[in-house]
Each structure stands twice: as structure tokens, then as C-alpha cells.
């Protein structure tokens, strides 16, 4: 059988609140840059996690998806689902909880657990009309 790498993607969903706001800026500056995003609101996020690798001949799998579910559940969903992103440590320190920064924060917690070689792509949907892809 062809021996190339196989890419496996699993979807996860979580719901979070956020607002875009820089404390060191005035209200007008914040409104000019972020518009209505300065007001606290929320999204139903969808996270697609793609892992890649050679198929284990014993299991026929790239990765045990139950393990992937456990890792993402513990590291991502437990932390961000029904949470206020602005109160999360990574964003409270000054990063704006944009989709870009959130996907990067998720990459940073998943890459060490899944292995940088195995984790190929994260695709984070903020809503059905907007998503960001990050490859590390």
C-alpha cells in the first residue's frame, strides 16, 4: 500500500466571550481600531485539529482519536469553553483575544502535547463566515 503520510482532522466546538480592548488606549482609540468589538460578546468557535503521520500498521491509525479528544478536551476545551477569554492568563497579560491570537495560544498548548511533527494545522472558526489557519 502507498506509504505516504496521512492527515487526520477532528473538529471540536467551544463557546467563549471576549472583547477587543487595550487599556493604554483611550475609548476613542479603542473604538476607532476595534469598532463594535470593544463590547463584550461571544462566539461558538469550531476548532479543527489536523495531525499527520504514517499509518501504524498495527492499528491502521495515524493517531488514536480518543487520545486526541482527551488531549484537546483537557488542554483547550476545559480552559476556553464557557469562559471569558479576556480573563485567561494569556490574554489578561495584554494580548487581544483575536482569532489569530487564540489559534496561536491553542497551538502553543497542543504542540508540546501532540508533538510538533505530528500537529500539522489548526483551523479556528469564529463563526461560519470567518476562520484562521495556523501551521505553527
Amino acid at each position, binding site marked *: 500500500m502507498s506509504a505516504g503520510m496521512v492527515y487526520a482532522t477532528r473538529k471540536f466546538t467551544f463557546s467563549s466571550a471576549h472583547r*477587543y480592548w*487595550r487599556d493604554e488606549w483611550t475609548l476613542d482609540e479603542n473604538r476607532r*481600531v*476595534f*469598532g463594535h468589538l470593544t463590547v463584550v460578546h461571544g462566539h461558538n468557535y469550531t476548532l479543527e485539529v489536523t495531525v499527520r503521520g504514517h499509518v501504524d500498521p498495527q492499528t491502521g491509525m495515524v493517531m488514536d482519536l480518543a487520545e486526541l479528544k482527551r488531549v484537546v478536551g483537557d488542554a483547550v476545551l476545559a480552559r476556553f469553553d464557557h469562559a471569558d477569554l479576556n480573563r485567561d492568563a494569556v490574554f489578561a497579560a495584554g*494580548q*487581544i*483575544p*483575536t*482569532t*489569530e*491570537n487564540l*489559534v*496561536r495560544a491553542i497551538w502553543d498548548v497542543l504542540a508540546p502535547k501532540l508533538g510538533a511533527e505530528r500537529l500539522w494545522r489548526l483551523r479556528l472558526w469564529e463563526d*461560519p*463566515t*470567518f*476562520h*484562521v*489557519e*495556523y*501551521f*505553527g
Partner: protein
Amino acid sequence: MGAFRLTRTYHFSAGHRLARAEFSELENARMFGQCHRQHGHNYAVEVTVEGTLDPATGMSADLGEVDAAVQKVLLERVDHYDLSSTVPELDGVISTGENLARAFWDWLEPVLAAGSLRRVAVVETENNAFEYFGAGDGVAR
């Protein structure tokens, strides 16, 4: 830190038919099948841009600018028009998903931030989608 690729999805509805003006109805029917009859679709267009992160805003592209550009040069040209007859910019273009993806690329590329456009996808129906990555080194990834 690598680059981020941002994709926005837009919708428009338009009429079209696949036909060559110099062909007879019979020839068009033979070449394009049922698509030669006047019909229409609820199209989705996915526009992917790439950028590096601005640490102050946490953003790697100005989605407001992308939205405004797509609205002006794409949606206003095609939404509720007939792609086969009432869009001057598509005169002479057979409005297949492939050709629409290429045309939309040509319309968007000059008005988006320089070098930022990575992909245009035209989703004609739930079953048919057409992606274009540009004439340069665009790669499907």
C-alpha cells in the same frame, strides 16, 4: 511564529448559463448539458488572505478592508445579476466555477493589501467548489 491565513466567506445569488455565443442551442446543449439552460445559484465565495501578526491589535489583516473590497469589486458586481449577460466584466467569459474563481482573483488581487491574497474559492452548490491559488507560486495547502 508563522504567518496566519484568514478566510472570510461571502454569499451572493446570481443567474447564469453555460453557453458559447457562437454555438447553436443544440450545440450548447450537447457541450454543457443541463447547464446550458438559464438557471442560478446561491454562491459562496471564500477569500483567503495571509499576513503577519500586529502585536498591538492581535490581527494579521484588516477584515474591515477585506469586507469593503469584496463588497465593492465583487458582490456589488454580481449579486442578483445574470453572470451570463448583465455583468460587463464577465463579457465573453463562460461562467463556470473555474472561470469565476479566476475572474474574482483578478478583481480582488489589485485592491487587497499587496501580496496578501492566497486563495479564492467559488462554492457553486454544496457539491461543487472551485479553488484558485493564483498564477504565481500559489499552492494548495
